[in-house]
């Protein structure tokens, strides 16, 4: 290769320049949303990992079971019973929709329209 002593460092400098944002932010994860977890209750319906990954499917199953199949109780993997209700079960522990649901949903720009009908706890408290 001609001028290898100039071309190769040039390429290296170029790569470093374009990957600069990665090197500047390595090890820093500031934008990760921080959700407010319930203070009293430590255990959700299922494990943390399951809820993180599958909560949308679980909620979808729940609404189908309650409304369409008249099955109002969920038996969890650990054998505990839960009354199926977004407002009366989920939001009894997660007392604030804005500090819990919205944190991640806004971060990933997802806007499920649960709350046009279901009443968030903070909305119920402030009702006129």
């Amino acid at each position, binding site marked *: 290769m001609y001028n290898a002593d100039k071309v190769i460092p040039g390429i290296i400098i170029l790569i470093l320049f374009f990957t600069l944002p990665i090197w500047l932010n390595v090890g820093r994860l500031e934008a990760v949303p921080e959700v407010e977890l319930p203070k009293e209750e430590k255990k959700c319906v299922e494990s943390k990992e399951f809820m993180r990954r599958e909560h949308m499917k679980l909620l979808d199953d729940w609404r189908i079971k309650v409304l369409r199949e008249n*099955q109002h109780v969920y038996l969890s*993997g650990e*054998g505990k019973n839960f009354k199926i209700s977004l407002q009366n079960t989920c939001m009894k522990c997660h007392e604030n929709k804005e500090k819990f649901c919205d944190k991640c949903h806004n971060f990933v720009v997802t806007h499920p329209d649960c709350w046009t009908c279901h009443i968030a706890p903070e909305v119920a408290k402030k009702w006129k």
Partner: protein
Amino acid sequence: MEIKRRDFLKILGLGLVGSITSANFLFRREVKAQSYIAPPEALKAKRWGMVIDIKKCVNAQPDCKLKCVEVCHKLHNVPSIPDKKKEIKWIWEDEYEHVFPEQPNEFVAKIYAHKPFILLCNQCANPPCVRVCPTQATFKREDGIVMMDYHRCIGCRFCMAACPFGARSFNWVDPRPYLAKVNPEYPTRTKGVVEKCTFCYERLAVGKIPACVESCPDKALIFGDLEDEHSEISKILKERFSIRRKAELGTDPSVFYLI
């Protein structure tokens, strides 16, 4: 190198088994024993129905001031919208002549003439609203309740056109500004969906009878299983004469009026 057909097939089979097991191992999901049950305290029936004792109801109305309507609408976050064209109602009143227009009679008994009758969704056994719903947002449960699944409702209002009883209301506007007080245990509805009485399915699931029946101070409303011979409602219907709204249309209403 030569390979026999037989050996080739053996190797192929082994490879297939190996890849399936490894794929299973790699993509294995948490094995869970999740299941759903109907709570044991839930009230069950083959066909829920209601009887409205008109004499008791009409006589009591000056005192009770339609407590059933008030309680139901409060419990289910039904808004009171002043504009009649946009109003939402689950249970309401109308005068005898409008409720039973097919029974014209200029000598109608005084007790019924222009007297308010209680109306609600008839929970028909052959519901026309269910037949026309394009998304199955409204459907009939096994216990006869004609349910609404607001998640699926697209607001086409076919069901409203199909219902001969005017039991359905459409949310032309966001109902929330018209709710003075809210029951935080029950959702509201949203603009663009149709709503109606659901025989308090959420109360039946916890072993309670519908709110209107429970709240009636004069026990003019009776709720029960129409297909159970020994239920209170079946006994009353056998003993006394009852009429149903527009029974000639063949929708087979489950709400009966004792005359």
